[in-house]
Structure formats: C-alpha cells, structure tokens
C-alpha cells in the first residue's frame, strides 16, 4: 500500500497526541525486560566465551601472531586472527577488517580473538597470544592528520569499495571531502560590516550507554548463523556481516532484544562481527563476547573530534551575508560511518541560517584514535558549537539582541537553503520565542551571592536525518482472534519510546484502543520486516509511515469483508474502538472473531474473509544526489527538525563551578504523537548535552587511553542536573510525517553546549572555543 493511501486515512481519535503509558515500562520496572547479556546468562556446557587480543600500539604493522601458548591452555577452543577474516567491512566505505589483518590502527584494535570455556580462561589465554608488531608513527589530531606529510593510516584507500556519494582521497588520510559552494563569498566579504572568525575544537567523546556491548553468535554446521546482540541496526549488521563473511543474507539471523541505551554507539557494526567470526571457528557452540567498561570506552565507536575554522559576516542591518568554513573531523582508525557525518556536516554547514554566500569544506580524516561513528546529533553538536558562538559575537558587534539576530537570520519555510533545496515547513522563530519567554530573556537577574556571576545564553539548531537517500522501513500488522493486534517492525526500542509510539500509530490507523496493540519483539531479522537502522531520529517518521500503511492495509481488508457482508459501500464504514460500524446503516460488528475466522454467509452457506494481515512500507523516493563540486541539488535531505535552547546559569568565580539554573528547550516536532515522551527526550537530552560539554576521551602521547572508566570519564549524575528543565513543543506539520510528525530524539542535545558557552560569556565576558569545559578551565580563565 502506498504512503499516499495511508495518508488519506489519517484520522485523529483517541490515541494520537495522548501521553499513553510506555508499552515497555512494566517489563523494565520488574526486571523482566531482556537485554543481550541476559541471554545465555547461565554458564553451561557447550557455551563458550570470547576475549579479544588488542593492539597496545596506536599504529603498527603486525609482523606475526603466535597463538600456540594460548591454544595450549586447558579450556581454550580456538584463536581467530585477521587471516580468518580477510575481507573488508564497512557501512559507507569498506575500510576495516573484522580482525586487524596486517596493521593495527589504534590502541585497542582487535588483532585476535580467543574462544574458551569460560571468560576467565579466555582472558588469561588472550594474554598469551604473542603478536610481533613494528611500530609506525601515529597521528591523533585531525588538523595534523590532514596534512600531506602526515603518517598514512590507510595506504590502500584507493582500493576500498565506497558508495557513490562519498569521496575519499587516496594517498592522503582524507576519507571524505564534501564541498559546498553557493553564491560568491569573495565578492560578499567587502559588503560585510562585521566579520567574526574563529577556530573551535571538540575532543572525541563516548556514548556511555549504561549497557556495554554484548554479542553472542552461533554458527551451525548447516551454515545457519545467529547473532544475538544489543543493536540499533540488526538489518544493517546482517547486511554488512553477510557481505564481508560470504554468508547468504537468508542464513544470517540477527536478534536484538531491548537495547540498554544506544545514542548511535550501537549503530552499524563494531565488535559484533568479531563474535560471528569467532563462532565460525567453533561451529555448534554459541560464543559470548562482552565488552568490559574499559573496552567500551575505546574499542567501540566514539564521537569524532572536530577542528572547525569558521568565518561569518553580516551587513550593518544584521543580515548574514557570507560564511566560509572548514570542518576537519578526526574520524578515527576507520571511518565507515564518519564519512557520512562529515558529509552531513557539509550539506548543513551553515547551521539553521539563511546565508546567501557559502564556501564550506567538510573533511573526515583518519586518526589513530577510536573509530568515529554516529553519536546523537551526527555531526550537528560538533558544528553548532562554533557557529552558535560566532552568531552571538556578530549580534553583539552589530549591537543587536542575539535572540533577535537569530529570529532575523534563521531559516524559514520555503526558503532556498544552502544546497539549493526548498526548506520544508518548520517554525524556528516560534521555538526561539518559546525559549526566550521561558527563560525570561529580557530580564537581567542578580546572582545569588557576591562571588557569583549570572548569565543567560541562547542557541538554535537544525538537523536532518542523515542516511542513504533510499533508507526504507516496513511493517506487518497481524490481528488475533480476540481483536488484539501484533505489530511487527524491524525498528528497535533503545529507550526513546519507539515501541510505544508505533503502537499508538497502529492503534489509531486501525481503529482499536492502544491497549490492544503489542509490538512483536525482539527484533529478529528472520521474522521482523526490513528496517534500515534505528538511527537519525527517523523511526517515528519512517517506521511510523510504514506502520500506518500496514494498519491501513489491514483496515481496508476488514472493511471490504464487512461491507460485502452487509452489502454496503466500504466508504460508509469505519473502525472505532475495535468495532466496525456503518455511518449509513448504523450496524456494528466487533473485530473479535471476524479478523481470523471471517464472517458466515446467511444460513451459514459458506464464509467470507479470513485471517487479516496488513503490510506496509515506506521509503523516501525524492532525495537527489548533490553535485560533487558545489554540493548543490534539488533535494539534499528528507526534512529538517529545528529547535532552540536557552540557558540561565551562575558561575562561582572562586571555584569556576557552573550551576545551571534552567535550561529551556523548544523543538518543532511537526506533531507530538506522545507529548510526554517528547518531554522526556527534551529533559534527557538537555542533561546529555550539558554532560557532553564536560566530557573528553583522553590519551597519552602514544595514543593510550587515560580515562577509560566511569571514575575518570565522568558523566552527569543526579547531582549535576539543572535546577529546572523546561520544554515546549511547536507543531508545524511535516508533509509526509504520520499526522505530521518528525523526529526529535537527537536534536535535544545538539545546541546545549554552545548555549552554555554563550551564557558563560554573558556572565563573565569570556569565550571558550575548545571543549571540554571544566571548572578548572573557567577558574583559570578568570585569573
């Protein structure tokens, strides 16, 4: 069923727009919810465990691997090395081996995997694997890695398989260069009254889900392969691992129970492929591979570092005229995802502003650091950090209120944005109005003590789902004897509330109470319908459309049976609260029974109907490629979600400590399908954004991690949260969203750090261009 038909059946009744209870909450408060590590939790004969042997060097050639001592340990079953996985793997760019083949590219790169009857034995044996390395010069800083004389991390870059919208530069560390050219910046600079220029740096940070990565794999003699793991991308994992290891897609089954926090860190493939490769070495035995918290920090994916050089100018009226920017993302040892982050940062490089003349260059470069990958915001928190501080400075220099400056220059519905695309309907000005009102923007308030300074800051944002142009979703809606409904999807519940919202969509589109709907979980690629990935804040929109189509299909089939039975026109019938009713004849028929057994003809002379199953899919068909030289094209992305945040804070000048008094957020979500779930995203995002401003993965000069534990890498605790978090929802419907809805899961933390930086400037008159912030840094700047 096409999306257009589903859209025609959009009705608003009981469930949409209501803050119904989370469908997963009961399981989660009772301890019944199953996560990957809970599977095969009991030790038992036949269950094996894996540990990875990891490179101690940031960059080294692997000369030889001798596993004989490890193999001699009692209980060790096999050792797997790069020679067992010679084919490359990667999402957009196949630039990685499952186990390092001839070269290790970061401290922690897996070079071998030991399989044993217990985790302890595997751990002990892993220490006995002898690897001979030849150390190579390493490079950690993106600005150094991009230089022509930098140590080359991927000399074979030219041979790698890559999608047609990513452009690596063989012979350099550049895995992607996205160019945006619009108007004529050189001609525009002389017309600018004020120009502000700056360099902004962000360190790599970690997602820190509370659940570490776990993967269990079983390779059966028949060639059937199963991978149980905590995954945002069961289907993408199936695709990438199947391709790399030569497994038919139909033979590889990826099952993912609840995910204990993802934030992008469980998207794509990281350690999961190691588990599959290890399982192949001990066919018939499941192999369980769990990351320790230390490994989680450096051996799974991280958010990349960024060095941004940005210059923006405006005229004397405060109209933005020109921008020139160079983003260099430190993508880490492999850039399979990072390349698309640099691309997204390139085509959105202006932030949410209309600037007629733009020259943008966005690079992803290899560095000998943890693999850069998707993290909540996908490049947007990184670029907004600099943009939003420069915007503040321009407003100040031109003598305009910075909120007003943003209202004037922010992108508006129908405008032609930097890529040449027409901006779909949004209302960013309304978001700015909401947060300035909530924070009492115009009121200067005194600090609570003489040694404290108080300040307010604002920042705005945009973000589009960054994905291949044709990322698709599908859904199946199955009705049961009693009228309850099972909805099958390949989308994942990471905590964001996807299962709840998709159940609401199914209930509403079908015409049954929300309480009748169940989501068929866990996601299992053998039975669940296809889903690209649970990323990019695209689930409510994309899967929502697919579920709507599937429920619409089921509804259509039910109405056809009943209409025939009553000899009426299906157009006169509807389903409400699980009852089929006719507007015309006012007859009623419960779904119960009918949806499985059909309806009997008069005098039981035969039957009509049968078990009802609805199917539906959704795939955007309208995204176009962008010109390689200019980044111009008709439709760069599906849509943007926009929003604003304002921060009210105090700085203790004796300690440099920040106290966040209030964060006010407002986002244009199109339509709030479940308003309170959006509020919980807004709250969680504000704290995540605040926390991220103080986070950094730290390494010594050899690239060895210095803070890969939760004591030295602190994330926000309950003691760190703002005194108040305020949220507002703006609803400008999205043309192709279910009831107008668009995603907001990532956006809620994109601009928090620059909003804080702007508030600190307001309080102290000091700007911080590099993250992380710390009380010490603020204190020293005050001296």
């Amino acid at each position, binding site marked *: 069923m096409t999306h257009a038909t589903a859209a025609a059946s959009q009705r608003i009744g009981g469930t949409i727009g209501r803050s119904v209870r989370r469908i997963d909450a009961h399981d989660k408060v009772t301890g019944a919810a199953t996560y990957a*590590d809970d599977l095969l939790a009991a030790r038992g004969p036949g269950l094996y465990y894996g540990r990875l042997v990891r490179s101690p060097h940031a960059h080294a050639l692997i000369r030889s691997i001798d596993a004989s001592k490890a193999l001699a340990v009692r209980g060790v079953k096999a050792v797997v090395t790069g020679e067992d996985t010679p084919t490359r793997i990667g999402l957009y760019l196949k630039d990685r081996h499952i186990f390092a083949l001839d070269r290790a590219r970061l401290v922690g790169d897996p070079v071998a995997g030991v399989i044993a009857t217990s985790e302890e034995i595997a751990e002990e044996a892993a220490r006995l694997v002898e690897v001979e390395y030849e150390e190579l010069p390493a490079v950690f800083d993106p600005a150094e890695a991009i230089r022509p004389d930098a140590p080359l991390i991927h000399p074979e870059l030219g041979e790698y398989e890559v999608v047609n919208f990513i452009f690596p530069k063989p012979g350099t560390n550049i895995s992607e260069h996205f160019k945006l050219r619009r108007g004529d910046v050189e001609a525009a600079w002389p017309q600018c009254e004020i120009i502000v220029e700056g360099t902004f740096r962000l360190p790599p940070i970690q*997602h820190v889900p509370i659940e570490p990565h776990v993967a269990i794999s079983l390779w059966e003699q028949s060639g059937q392969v199963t991978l149980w793991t905590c995954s945002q991308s069961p289907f993408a994992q199936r695709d990438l691992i199947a391709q790399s290891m030569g497994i038919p897609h139909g033979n590889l089954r990826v099952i993912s129970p609840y995910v204990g*926090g993802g*934030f992008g860190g469980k998207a794509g493939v990281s350690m999961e492929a190691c588990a599959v490769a290890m399982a192949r070495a001990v066919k018939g035995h499941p192999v369980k591979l769990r990351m320790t*918290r230390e490994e989680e920090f450096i051996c799974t994916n991280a958010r990349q570092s960024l060095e941004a050089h940005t210059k923006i100018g405006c005229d004397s009226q405060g109209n933005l005229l020109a921008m020139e920017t160079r983003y260099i993302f430190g993508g880490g040892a492999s850039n399979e995802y990072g390349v698309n982050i640099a691309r997204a940062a390139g085509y959105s490089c202006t932030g949410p502003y209309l600037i007629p003349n733009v020259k943008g260059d966005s690079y992803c470069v290899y560095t000998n650091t943890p693999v850069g990958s998707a993290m909540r915001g996908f490049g947007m928190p990184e670029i907004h950090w600099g943009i939003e501080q420069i915007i503040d400075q321009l407003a100040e220099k031109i003598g305009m209120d910075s909120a007003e400056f943003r209202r004037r220059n922010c992108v508006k519905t129908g405008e032609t944005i930097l890529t040449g695309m027409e901006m779909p309907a949004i209302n960013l000005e309304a978001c700015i109005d909401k947060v300035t009102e909530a924070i009492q923007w115009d009121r200067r308030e005194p600090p609570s003590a003489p040694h404290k300074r108080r300040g307010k800051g604002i920042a705005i944002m945009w973000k589009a789902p960054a994905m291949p142009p044709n990322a698709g979703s599908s859904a199946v809606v199955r009705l049961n004897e009693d009228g309850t409904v099972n909805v099958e999807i390949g989308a994942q519940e990471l905590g964001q509330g996807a299962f709840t919202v998709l159940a609401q969509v199914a209930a509403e589109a079908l015409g049954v109470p929300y309480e009748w709907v169940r989501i068929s979980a866990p996601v299992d690629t053998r039975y669940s319908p296809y889903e690209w990935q649970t990323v990019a804040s695209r689930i409510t929109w994309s899967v929502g459309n697919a579920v709507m189509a599937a429920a619409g299909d089921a509804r259509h089939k039910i109405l056809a049976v009943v209409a025939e039975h009553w000899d009426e026109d299906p157009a006169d019938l509807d389903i409400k609260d699980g009852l089929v009713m006719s507007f015309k004849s006012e007859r009623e028929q419960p779904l119960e029974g009918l949806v499985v057994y059909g309806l009997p003809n008069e005098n039981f002379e035969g039957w009509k109907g049968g078990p009802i199953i609805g199917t539906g899919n959704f795939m955007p068909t309208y995204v176009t490629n962008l010109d390689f030289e200019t980044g111009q094209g008709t439709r760069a992305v599906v849509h943007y979600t926009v929003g604003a945040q304002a921060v009210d804070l105090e700085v203790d000048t004796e300690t440099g400590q920040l106290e966040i008094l209030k964060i006010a957020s407002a986002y244009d979500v199109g339509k709030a399908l479940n308003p309170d779930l959006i509020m919980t995203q807004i709250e969680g995002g504000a*704290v995540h954004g605040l926390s991220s401003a103080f986070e950094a993965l730290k390494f010594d000069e050899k690239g060895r991690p210095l803070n890969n534990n939760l004591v030295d890498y602190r994330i926000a605790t309950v003691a760190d*949260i703002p005194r108040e978090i305020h949220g507002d929802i703006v609803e400008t419907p999205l043309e192709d969203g279910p009831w107008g809805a668009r995603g907001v899961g990532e956006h809620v933390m994109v601009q928090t750090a620059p909003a804080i930086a702007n508030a600190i400037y307001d309080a102290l008159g000091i700007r911080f261009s590099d993250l992380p912030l710390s009380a010490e840094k603020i204190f020293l700047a005050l001296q």
Partner: protein
Amino acid sequence: MHTITVTINGAAEYLAVRSNMTLLQMLREELGLTGTKNGCEAGECGACTVLLDGEPVNACMVLAVESDGHQVITVEGLAEGDELAPLQESFIELNAVQCGFCTPGMLTSAHALLQRHPKPTEDEIEEAVLGNLCRCTGYVRIVDAIRDAAGSSASASGKGGAR
C-alpha cells in the same frame, strides 16, 4: 567451592559458589535473576545495585560468599506477586524509564531509601541515587517518581520542574 545459604527475595537458596564469584555473577549466572544488570563490574555505575540486609550494595563488588546467611533483595523481589510496588508504579506513571538498563538499580536504591526515610527530602533522594548512573533520562523523572512514591510534596528547592 563454598556452600552457602542466602535468602533471596524471601526464599532460601542453597548454592555452591567459587570463592572469586561475585554476588552479581551468582544472581545472574547461577540463579538466572537477570534483572540485576552489569554495567561496569567495577563499582562505578550502580546498575547492579541490590539490597543486602536492606542496605544498597553494588553486587559486582560483593563476593557471593559474603552473602552467606544474609538477605538479598533484587528488582525481581520488589513487587508483591502481580502487585507492583508503589515505586514501580510511580516509575511507570511518570515515565522515569527509558532504556531501562539503570532502572533495576535505581529502584533498589530508591527502595532502600524509602525503607529508611518514608518521607525523604530532596537531598536524601539525590544522595540515594547519586551512585546510580543514567544516560537517558537526565534523572528528572527518576527524582519525581521517588518523590511521588513517597507521597511527599515537592520541596521548595525542587529540581526537575519540567512539566
């Protein structure tokens, strides 16, 4: 191997455990009580919080043998049969649950608090869950839910006025 007797969620269990086995491993791997989560195995995240004689402890930092002769309560033991505890109801009602991985530890920490202080202050609530990390919720609803379960009204300094 040591033979131990532990009362877990009210029922006596007789177990043979290795001397280096942690209480967390015992619960998850020997007894199949997987509600208690492993987030770090280093005493840093609080996901493994259980109650040992009513006191919240990180089960990853306690040896199984140390529980010999003691009472352990896990998240599975909070409800009375099918009847959820008020804390669990409040966590559901106020959407204090997102990914749910911190939830068992949060609930057990909060349960211990409410046993000790049925009407906790804001500071007491904060202190009770200070060692429980949550990456999803921003803690706002968790604090709200604990306060709600205690039936106490928000104090003036009330954090989390999100709604």
